[in-house]
């Protein structure tokens, strides 16, 4: 009797959560419709800051979508048994996050009604154009990969499918990074280091998302992640977070010493108001230093929920970094006449300001709503819960080191 009572409350709670996620999605869609109808005049974006809050959300979702698949790749491509149990969940998250990211970016288009045009007209020299091929390809390959993982008949093919998915996701994130990496016009972009930086970012952010979802699913079912598994995953997250920091460091150093963008770097790292604050406070302190301490200082690490908190903070850091990278990179004026002081009616030479409007933020959150709802429904109807066979793991020697 008691058990039945519990499951009924649990069921109710599930529907409430799913409905809440659905509501956030619907509000996001309504915000997009409003933007579409009124024009981008209702956003904070303008002719200088052409990409705003929706792009921060969308790029986070797309980059993390590719990264979250890494968990599956470690299992299938690199043969780690512990990660293989997590492959289906990893694939599901990759699919829903990519779908959510694409939804946000598509609905922000000036002519979102022309989605068919985007699909039928293709410019091979455009990085965006490549992405139009990379995204559907990702859905197809990861879909196939999930099939090989979840259907016993298809199971023999999971290794090649996993390898294909691994390669494709590297291409996908290279494509996302190259959207910025090949832009010669603005000082913040055009750097060969951006594509690899995006790949390593995807590792860290995707794993953080995965660990948050995994922890929530286990907690929902009244279970805890085995300490040895927690230990391994938190070490991997720490490694990725440190690697992202290394790439961010290299990116800024190349800008300063190689590309001589000292004025821009001065702005973004020291004098630019919100941007240095977000960079040092949001990304470096909250998103890098604190998580690393939580993950590696034994006393802190022992506290319950410290790994969960670290993963959450990594995502806070991700948003700070993306905001600085995308918005900060655009508010800084273009250097049309190097060495000259310029002024014009079009705000040449002026540092622009950007304040996101409510519809933009709601659209971005709508993407999160969609990812949340789709994940919640997915894990409820299908078997995505990681099943750890501890005895087998110990046999393989996976739990020893």
């Amino acid at each position: 009797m008691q058990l039945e009572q519990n499951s009924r409350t649990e069921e109710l709670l599930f529907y409430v959560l799913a409905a809440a996620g659905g509501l956030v999605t619907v509000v996001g869609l309504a915000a997009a419709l409003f933007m579409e109808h009124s024009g981008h005049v209702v956003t904070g974006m303008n002719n200088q800051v052409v990409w705003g809050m929706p792009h921060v959300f969308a790029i986070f979702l797309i980059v993390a979508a590719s990264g979250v698949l890494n968990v599956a790749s470690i299992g299938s491509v690199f043969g780690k048994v512990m990660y293989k149990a997590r492959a289906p969940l990893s694939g599901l998250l990759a699919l829903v996050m990519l779908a959510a990211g694409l939804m946000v970016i598509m609905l922000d288009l000036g002519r979102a009604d022309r989605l068919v045009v985007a699909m039928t007209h293709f410019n091979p020299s455009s990085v965006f154009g490549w992405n139009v091929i990379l995204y559907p390809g990702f859905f197809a390959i990861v879909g196939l990969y999930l099939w090989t993982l979840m259907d016993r008949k298809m199971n023999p093919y999971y290794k090649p499918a996993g390898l294909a998915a691994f390669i494709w996701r590297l291409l996908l994130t290279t494509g996302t990074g190259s959207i910025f990496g090949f832009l010669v016009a603005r000082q913040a972009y055009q750097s060969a280091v951006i594509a690899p930086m995006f790949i390593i970012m995807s590792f860290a952010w995707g794993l953080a998302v995965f660990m948050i979802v995994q922890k929530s699913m286990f907690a929902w079912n009244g279970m805890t992640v085995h300490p040895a598994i927690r230990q391994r995953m938190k070490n991997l997250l720490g490694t990725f977070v440190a690697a992202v920091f290394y790439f961010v460091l290299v990116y800024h150093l190349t800008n300063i010493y190689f590309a001589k963008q000292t004025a821009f770097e001065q702005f973004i790292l020291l004098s630019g108001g919100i941007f240095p604050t977000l960079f040092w406070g949001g990304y470096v302190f909250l998103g890098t230093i604190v998580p690393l301490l939580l993950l590696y200082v034994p006393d802190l690490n022992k506290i319950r929920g410290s790994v969960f908190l670290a993963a959450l903070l990594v995502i806070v850091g991700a948003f700070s970094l993306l905001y600085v990278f995308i918005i900060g990179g655009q508010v800084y004026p273009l250097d049309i006449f190097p060495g000259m002081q310029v002024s014009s009616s079009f705000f040449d030479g002026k540092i622009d300001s950007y304040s996101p409007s409510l519809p933009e933020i709601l659209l971005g959150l709508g993407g999160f709503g969609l990812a949340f709802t789709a994940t919640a429904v997915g894990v409820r109807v299908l078997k995505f819960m990681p099943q750890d066979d501890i005895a087998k793991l110990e046999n393989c020697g996976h739990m020893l080191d």
Partner: protein
Amino acid sequence: MNEPQDKSRRGFIGTAAVGTAGLGIAALAPGLHLIQVSQADTPTQGASSTVRWGMLIDTTKCASGCDACVKACNTENGIVETVKDARQGAQWIRKIELKDPKNGREHSLPMMCQHCANPPCVDVCPTGASMKRADGIVLVDRHICIGCRYCMMACPYKARSFVHQPLTEQNPEVPRGLGCVESCTFCVQRVDKGLKPACAEACPEGAMTFGDLNDPNSEIAQRLAREASTQVRADLKLNTGVRYQGI
């Protein structure tokens, strides 16, 4: 300005047709409708790759504070701004005031789409809406522009504007609309009629010379051969169609 293009080949159309050939026919048959006259016309051959339109701007003649070119552009292209935030308004051509901090030298110049031979906007456009005509004019095909603004990220001259608000007062020959990106077209509707861009025509100092860079006999080609000129952001090797003197 030289008239480098072959008038008999390009032909005159629309209202111009009424003004020339149309008048003769209309005189013969006074009851004839305008539409029937234009039906009798044969279409023009279109943009030719033997031509490359360009503009030479002499900044030594360009007066600080004068915006005759900007006004002419707005009139010609029907740009009437109603957006509250000026940063969201369209500017196809703008005046930039330059000052060299090292020696205090000041000058003024008009800046617009540079009609590059290797345009970054065309490279990055996912649908091919950003395009370069055979005669070198860089345009946005609004029929397939999805409004992603990637071209605005890629343009080193900040030459493009995004239409942030619905429009109603377009000029019939210059369609523009919500959610698409746009920029200077070299007044393609005038160039196709054998006229020069509105800005070049309006400049009180005659500082803007328009013509065919490929025609060695054109004024622009001859001056470029004789006199010093520069491309803005020449380091990017975009081979711009708009060249400047005196900067």
